[in-house]
């Protein structure tokens, strides 16, 4: 099994990667730091699992070379689980990417990263409801300080593919 770290540029994927694998990928406070992907190994429940730091992408319709790399990696890997990293202070556009990944049948857990920044901006997110609607685990994290990382790893074990119809039902149908 492989685990892919996906999300928009500059939401902290590389910080996660370093936290999870103990490796040293350079992190920068600007988008596009990870241009090639980076591989490492993390441990889930005693097993060693390959973790891949995918370049940031806004959607699964690639717009530049780094995004192409990202999408190709998702499609080429078999038996993968995806950690979708979302900037909690800009949650809506992050959910867009998460939905795209869920639609394609990949098991997903969502990390609502930069929880602290969202707090500063007075944004409150009901995680339980969000998790119930989407049918996937949602964890609030602050990767820089390591908050929520452990919970994220535990929830990865139970990640299952979700039918998009269920999500549509949960929000009360389409308009």
């Amino acid at each position: 099994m492989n685990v892919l770290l996906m999300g928009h540029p500059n939401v902290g994927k590389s910080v996660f990667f370093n936290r999870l694998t103990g490796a040293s990928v350079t992190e920068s406070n600007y988008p596009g730091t990870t241009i090639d992907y980076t591989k490492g190994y993390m441990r889930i429940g005693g097993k060693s699992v390959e973790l891949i730091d995918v370049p940031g992408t806004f959607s699964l319709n690639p717009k530049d070379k780094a995004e192409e790399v990202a999408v190709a990696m998702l499609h080429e890997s078999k038996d993968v689980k995806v950690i979708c990293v979302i900037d909690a202070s800009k949650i809506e556009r992050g959910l867009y990417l998460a939905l795209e990944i869920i639609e394609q049948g990949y098991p997903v857990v969502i990390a609502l990263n930069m929880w602290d920044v969202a707090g500063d901006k007075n944004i409150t997110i009901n995680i339980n409801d969000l998790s119930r609607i989407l049918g996937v685990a949602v964890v609030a994290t602050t990767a820089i300080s390591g908050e929520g990382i452990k919970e994220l790893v535990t929830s990865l074990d139970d990640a299952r593919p979700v039918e998009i119809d269920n999500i549509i039902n949960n929000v009360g149908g389409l308009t």
Partner: protein
Amino acid sequence: MTLDAATRWDIIDKISKETIAFGKYRHTLTDAIGELTVKPGTGIPIAIAILYGFWSIFGSFAGFFTDGFFVRIFDEYWLVWLQGVFPGQGGWLYAIMVDAGGIQSGQFIPSDNCLEAFGVLTSGIFVAIGVVLPAILIFYFMLALLEDIGYMPRLAVLIDTLLHKIGLHGYAIVPTILSLGCNVPGVTATRILETKKQRFIMMTLLAIFIPCGAQIGIMEDVVPGLMGWIMLYLLIGYFIFGFVLNKIVPGEAPEFLIDVPPYRKPLVSNIFKKVWGRLVGFFKVALPFVLLGCAIVGILYMLEVIDWLAVVLSPIFIGWFGVPAETAGPLIAAFLRKDLAVAQLSTIEMTEYQMITAVVLVSIYFPCVATFAMMLKEGWKELLAALAVLAVVVFLYGGLIHVIGILLGVA
């Protein structure tokens, strides 16, 4: 089952209504300062100030180590010691490894400093450790600091309009600034640009107009007073030829939306990790080439290849570029060793303006071998095209600088 974009946004809208509450958002001081650094009226003076700080610290730090300590260590101890213990003074191996010296009336005259000895173990090591190491150490440290605070995207926003004129966009500032440390990661970073056209323009401009940390370090050391003019000429060239390339290279240069992150307190550990990683990378890639280049130049001198070329090409150098005939040697050797070529130039008698011209020529010359290899990886067609552009640029721009000098009455 997959949905279309409108349906996805519909779902997200519903989710958001149920789960997210946006409280009243009051601007913090960090936000206010963030805004000041992006708005042109206040952002440009701030950018000027930050560049001032960058340059000032760079100069004092590099000068502290190079002039304060390394020059003494290398000239008074290392060189003297090597001249004493290395066998075969005057022989070819001695000349390549330690000291080519000067020959006057059949008498070998040893050099008295590491810049003029031109040996692999003397000039080669001195340039790498004594000059380049402090320069790129402080460069990468300050770059990491600016990156982690979150200043880079703001600089990108500020300079976006200007870079659009040359077919690029704000983020092109990232490969450009990275290249000031070393062109190799700069070339890799061009991948954040979207189209082939943009990547080609960027790579070509980097290879030609952006001097790397090694060059800047040695320029700071041997011609500190002329730095401003040299950088100005390179900057002007960057924009002139970027503008021209944008007009003639086919392809698109799309708009790019820049996402500006909030300012963050940098993590010290991350900064040190980054500086260390880049330093190691630089020395793994660059140091072997530096020493090898030093040896090859030494051999070519010995075989009198360079002297021969200098004679053949000297009409171009004197007539077209307006620099003394002696500079032909170092300028040709610059194909292999840019930084050492600058050092060689500094020992030749010439006017200030000729020195500026010669150093600019060395900078816009052929990229170093490591950069060359990186560009080859991105595609050989692009590399050939870049080289063609390069040949034209060196010829035209060198001539142009000469003409400007004539008009100013200094050449």
